[in-house]
């Protein structure tokens, strides 16, 4: 059974904290993605990675960075959390080309 696992289901952090969201997949996929989901805005792509140590900015990368040191793990980093980063964060992985993506269960982050 294929799996994408996000480290936390719910997270509460304080403004200014450095926040790490972790995502692990067990399907040996090259491509991994981080999205945030907000009401009325759908899913917006923050960053994606097409190989170990390789990354590309998505549509809303400001305030975020990513790390992919191993193929199975893709981390999203909020350098200095702000209240406008309160959101649902979704990680996904897929093989290259036209294939389906597999999603984690999501992390609901609240920044207070």
């Amino acid at each position, binding site marked *: 059974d294929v799996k994408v696992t996000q480290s936390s289901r719910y997270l509460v952090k304080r403004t200014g904290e450095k926040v790490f969201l972790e995502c692990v997949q067990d399907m040996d996929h090259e491509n991994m993605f981080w999205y945030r989901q907000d009401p009325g805005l759908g899913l917006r792509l923050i960053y994606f990675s097409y190989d170990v140590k390789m990354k590309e900015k998505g549509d809303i990368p400001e305030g975020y960075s990513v790390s992919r040191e191993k193929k199975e793990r893709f981390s999203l980093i909020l350098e200095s959390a702000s209240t406008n980063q309160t959101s649902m964060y*979704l990680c996904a992985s897929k093989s290259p080309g036209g294939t389906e993506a597999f*999603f984690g269960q999501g992390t609901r982050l609240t920044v207070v």
Partner: protein
Amino acid sequence: SQQGEEDPQALSIQEGENATMNCSYKTSINNLQWYRQNSGRGLVHLILIRSNEREKHSGRLRVTLDTSKKSSSLLITASRAADTASYFCATGANTGTASKLTFGTGTRLQVTL
């Protein structure tokens, strides 16, 4: 910028009726996919249609793709209460280094008994 825009934003129907959702996108694509999301959970893949295909079926799902109009539709026939969820279209395109997947804003479907 958002690639896909779904229409309508919300849809309420009775069990047994058909549900149709539409998706429009802006640039060239390799494929278009539809996903389903139950409340507060991750997304689950439903169906993929390639840019050289016009129609595809899977069970009670029917997807059409019109690349000249840059639009797609998802039809769910004989809907059930368990179909209540949000539905998203996603377009796949090669960026040169990766296959990027861009989602739309979604349609919330409510199926009542």
